[in-house]
């Protein structure tokens, strides 16, 4: 019991620290209005071009691997909204290389908060607000136009899936970022992962044949971001080369992948060598 109380008090302290650090980060970022607006426009442009791409494609082809325009648009919107749940709270993770190279992590070690918490609250990722605007906006529009017959249960599943999808992306990026403690620079590896997710996770992934799909589910698990939960909502689980229950519990995939990523990150912090600045 005493152990449980101690753990809870550590979690409470971390939450308090993250609240303070996040508030400071966002206040600092919001002071510069022009950069605030240009960052939001940039965030919308980054993901919006993919939406345009899909829109133009479907206006000519109307069906991808048996999925009609409205359902592909819904799948894409789920991916965009899930991405927002990664970049808004965890977008600062992108600066991990810089924090290590400049010796900022030395200071993190001295403060009474976890390294991961300080890395993700290092600055407020303004561009992420553009991602959120586009993600939630498109989900609000395309969810209604999809062929899903909405019930309160399905709405709850969608919310869980989108948060879970964000955690999948966060977990994958956290796992890759952990290598920075040994390799110093992993930015190109993380851009590679981000680019692959941005370009391809909004498609019906079974189009990449059985082995391609299994790789994108169990090796590079981007199927959990939007595709698996979308098949559940759209009643398309019969297309999956895996068991249906995997799609049913797919929102939980985020928790598992994030836990693996975070555990690995914390373990890799032991490998940190100060640059000596």
């Amino acid at each position: 019991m005493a152990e449980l109380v101690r753990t809870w008090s550590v979690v409470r302290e971390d939450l308090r620290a993250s609240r303070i650090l996040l508030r400071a980060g966002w206040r600092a970022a919001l002071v510069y209005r022009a950069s605030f607006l240009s960052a939001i426009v940039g965030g919308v442009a980054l993901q919006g071009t993919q939406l345009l791409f899909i829109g133009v494609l479907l206006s000519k082809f109307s069906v991808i691997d048996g999925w009609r325009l409205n359902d592909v648009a819904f799948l894409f919107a789920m991916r965009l909204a899930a991405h927002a749940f990664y970049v808004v709270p965890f977008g600062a993770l992108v600066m991990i290389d810089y924090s290590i190279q400049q010796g900022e992590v030395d200071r993190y070690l001295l403060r009474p908060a976890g390294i991961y918490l300080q890395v993700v609250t290092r600055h407020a990722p303004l561009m992420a607000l553009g991602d959120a605007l586009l993600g939630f906006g498109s989900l609000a529009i395309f969810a209604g136009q999809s062929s899903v017959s909405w019930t309160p249960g399905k709405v709850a599943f969608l919310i869980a899936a989108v948060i879970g999808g964000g955690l999948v992306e966060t977990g994958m990026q956290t796992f890759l970022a952990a290598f920075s403690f040994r390799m110093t620079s992993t930015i190109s590896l993380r851009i590679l992962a981000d680019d692959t997710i941005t370009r391809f996770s909004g498609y019906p992934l079974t189009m990449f044949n059985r082995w391609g799909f299994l790789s994108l589910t169990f090796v590079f698990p981007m199927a959990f971001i939007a595709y698996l939960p979308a098949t559940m909502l759209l009643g398309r689980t019969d297309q999956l080369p895996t068991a249906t229950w995997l799609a049913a519990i797919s929102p939980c995939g985020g928790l598992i992948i994030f836990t693996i990523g975070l555990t690995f990150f914390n373990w890799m912090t032991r490998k940190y060598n100060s640059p000596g600045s």
Partner: protein
Amino acid sequence: MPVDTLSTRLTGLRGLYRAGYRSVLVYRADLLFGIAGLVIQATLTVVVWRVLYDGHDEVAGVGASTAVAYAVLAACIQSILMPWQFSSLPLRVLRGQIGVDMMRPRSLISQNLAQAAGTMVGRLPVGAAGLLTGLALGGVKAPHTLPDLLAWVVSMVLGIANVMIINLLVSMIAFWTVEIGGIMILYRFGSAFLSGALIPLWFMPGWLQPIISWLPFQAQIYAPLSIWFGTRHGVDLLGTLALQLGWVLVLFVLLQLVWRRAVHKVVVFGG
């Protein structure tokens, strides 16, 4: 007193060109992940387009093999022409190193263009890896005739000049404001769409095609590739090349004008 001949001018710029490609080759891990990224992208792109064409012989007058080859070649060309950091100018303005650049006996424009050319040459292995992947998957088609190939070379050179000048023009916004992250992202992804790097103009909606065809971006990737696939002949081909050349000249004049304004805006940080 040293004479400023063409040879000495080129020697100075050659150093910056070398710095450009060395800046790519020195980060081997970045280069390797860049290569891996394009191999994955080319592979998945081929699959996506083939699945899209399932059950269609032609869409908008374009066959499956042409659409697949276009997507692969466009991705390869874009990976060379548009590296993630396509200009060092904004960072040099932010760090105050622009002061040193301006004291050099070569114009800032030629310094930056030489460095950008070097960066593109350094990224050739990335594009080559994507091309080999496309070839291995049977997703690349050669030009129909030798004249098409020669016309493509001319068109591609004009396309590269177009990209280099617009990249530098956009980077010069850094002289007015240092917070240009959002603008650079908007430009990067906007130009990718408008240049035909993501999707050829053949598939664009009818109302959008004339607008895009009068913008400078389509002269970067779509124009050379439409020549590669033999869709332009005679007057149409000459008109395409003339439009590309016209854009290069107009953009270069615009670059000079912006630079003349920018030089009065320079604030060197750091003292």
